[in-house]
Every structure is written in C-alpha cells, then in structure tokens.
C-alpha cells in the first residue's frame, strides 16, 4: 500500500459533498423550472413540492458555501509567479509537451474557480432568498430573477468543467474527494510546493 498524505480534512470532504450534492440538485430543479420539464417535476411529486426542495436545497447550499470559505478562501486569494506561468501554459491541459511550473496545494485555475463559485454562489443565494421572501417588491423580484438566472448560467458552465477536471481529466483526483488523501508520490509530482 502506497504511503498516503492527507490533502483534505474530514469536514472539508463532507462539506464538499454537501455543496456538490445540493448544487447538482439545484441545477436539475432549476433547469426543470426554466424549461417546464414535467418529467423532472413528476419525480418530486409536482412543481409545488419541487419548489420546496429547490428552496431548502438552496439553504443547505448557502450554508455549505459559507462554511467552505474556511477551507479554500485564503488559498484562493494568493497567486505567485508560478501561478502566472501556469496560466501561460494553460496548466498543461492543452498540450502534454509544455513544462508546467511547480504548484502548491491548489493551482491558480482551481483558486480562480473557487472565487467564481463563491461570488456566483453568493449572488444566486441572495437573489434566491429575495425571490423566496420578497415577493411583494416588484423591482427587487425582477432584479433578483435576473441575477439568479445570470448566476445560473455561470454555474452550468463552470461546474461541469470542475467535474471533468476533478475526474476524467486528472485520474486519481476523485479519490481525494472520497478519502481526503492522495498517494505521497503523486503529491510530490503534482503539488511539490505544498509537500515540501
């Protein structure tokens, strides 16, 4: 058995699952509302119940998103020269022949992704609560409806990229989401600045 190193704490792994699960549930129900998908509504026993599921999944997502800040925000705000070089070589994702600079715990793509999720997440949560609780204020409702849908477009574009990069594109990464650990040897190659 290879020697493992812990990359994510237990509460981080758990919270990421809650965040991911609620997010996917919200996206599916969101699409169902947007495009009147009656088959999806039927799964929940109708659109009225689906609305409750969507609202309360939103509460779970909001809490989970705020909690995730303690895991990722500090890292996501720091970028160094290697990070700039990483963008120049597109993280090595467009060619296996370029030299990718040594990375810390997260690469700048992941850090930027987190900031996008945090900002779009706060926007979609606040606008969602406005649609839920401020029904009688016409201008707030229409603004919130617009913000909610703009943030939704951001989510459906960036989240699949994140899922792809965390599974197929980087074999082994998904294991970190499950166990919170990765083999030491792999960590030395992928995260030299973090391991040292």
């Amino acid at each position, binding site marked *: 058995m290879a020697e493992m190193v812990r990359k994510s704490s237990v509460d981080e792994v758990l919270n990421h699952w809650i965040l991911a699960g609620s997010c996917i549930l919200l996206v599916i129900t969101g*699409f169902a509302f947007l495009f009147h998908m009656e088959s999806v509504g039927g799964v929940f026993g109708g659109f009225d119940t689906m609305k409750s599921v969507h609202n309360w999944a939103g509460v779970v997502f909001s809490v989970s998103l705020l909690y995730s800040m303690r895991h990722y925000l500090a890292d996501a705000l720091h970028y160094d020269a290697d990070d700039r070089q990483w963008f120049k070589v597109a993280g090595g994702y467009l060619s296996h022949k370029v030299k990718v600079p040594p990375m810390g715990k997260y690469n700048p793509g992941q850090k930027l992704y987190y900031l996008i999720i945090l900002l779009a997440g706060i926007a979609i949560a606040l606008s969602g609560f406005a649609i839920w609780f401020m029904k009688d204020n016409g201008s707030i409702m*229409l603004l919130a409806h617009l913000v909610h*849908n703009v943030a939704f*477009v951001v989510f*459906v574009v960036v989240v699949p990229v994140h899922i*792809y990069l965390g599974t*197929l*594109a980087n074999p082994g990464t998904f294991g970190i989401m499950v166990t919170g650990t990765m083999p030491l040897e792999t960590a030395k190659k992928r995260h030299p600045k973090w391991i040292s």
Partner: protein
Amino acid sequence: MANNTNTSRKAILVTPELCIGCRACQVACKSWNQLSAIKTKNNGTYQNPPDLASAAYNMIQYSEVPSDQNAVRWLFLSRRCMHCEDAGCMTICPSPGALYRTDDGAVAFDRDKCIGCKLCVNACPFDVPRYDAEDKVTKCHLCFDRIGAGMEPACTKTCPTGALKFGDRDELVGAAKQEGFGTIYGEKDLGGLGSIYAFKEEPKLYGMKENPEIPSSVVFWHTYLKPLSLIGLGGVVGAAAIHYLAIGPHKDQEEEV
C-alpha cells in the same frame, strides 16, 4: 415570444364612453365565479373595490378629469385581465400549466399547479394577477367555462349599455373602427390584447397605460439567458469530451519534445 397564435381568438371589447358605471359587470363576475365580498372603506371615490383583488377579477376604475364644458368629467373604465397574446405572466411562470392559453385565446389559471412564486405578478404589464389567501394566483379567465358551454362571459352578458361586448376578436376590432373609434387600444400591443378598448380620445385620459411592455429584464432573460444556459452546458460538456479525446488526461511526466 408569443405564447400561442390563435385563429378563432375571442375578445372583450370595452367602449368606455358607453359605460355608465353601474358595476353590474363586477356583480355578475362575482356571482358566476363565486367570489366573496370585500369589505372596503370609503376613500372619497365611487371606485369600489379600490383595486383588482383575488375576489375581484374585474372592476370599474373611476377617474375625474378636467373639462371645458363642465366642472369635471367623470370617466369609467372597466378593467380586467388583458389576455395578452404575448403574455408576460405565462412567459415567466416556472410551473407548466399554472397559467395556460385557452382555445379561445384567453389566459386562464390552474390554482392546483400554481407554486405561489408571484413572478407572474411582477411580469404583468397591467398589474393584473392577484394572490388569494392560500397564495395561489387568481385573475379573470375570460369565463372560459361559460364560453366552452356556448355562453358569453358573465360581465359582457350583464352589461346593459353595450360598453362590454364579447365576440370574435377580428370582428370586434372591425366593428369598432366602422363606428368611428380612432383608437383601438390593444389592437397591436403585446401581440394583440384579448381585452381591447375603443376610444375616440386619448386612452391616457382614461388611465390606460401607454406603450405597455413586458419588463425588459424578463424579455432579456427569455430571449438570451434561457437558451444560453442550455448552450453553455452543452458547450462545456462537448468541449470536455473533445479535450478528453483529442488531448487526453493529465500525465504526471511531460512528454519528450
């Protein structure tokens, strides 16, 4: 973004200058739709109820405007759902079937399918939909149940002066024009309204909204954001698949150049 097109579209033609403000239309509507009475306060006008409500699908709006001949002119305007061809309420509603188009071209509601989000209230250019005590949408449905049984809506049936007429929309528009009404309000607005108004004067005088439009944010959302969410999702999933096939997953050692 018309919700539907209809060849046998029915309409109510309101001719405000024929209206005597008797409010029989209000009573007939309540009677047919079994709507309860609303306790109101005298606020210095004959207008009662003061506004459309979950128990008032139609109402007469009373307004006093300056006049050359008399001290004041007293105008009566029968209001209800406009049954827009391009209906903002139907466009924004997230629950299929909660607001729907009848065979006669009216916009009706199904309270069992309403999820109580109130988006329709905010997308309506005419401030028509109201929520009842159970937070379900209500509004005029052009008495689709009466029309389906070969009758006309309760309000037009009871109107004693002809201020309210029900019939084939095209015929009503043609007849009103022949009678010399210069302005048919709602003939073209929002794809054509199902409640049309015949005026010889400026509709604004009677308190009609000028250039009614669906809120621009709703139009933008419907025209661009909705398709963009599908195109965006499909695009990145497709791009990921192409990346996986063309370039392939990450390798821990870079290849020799």
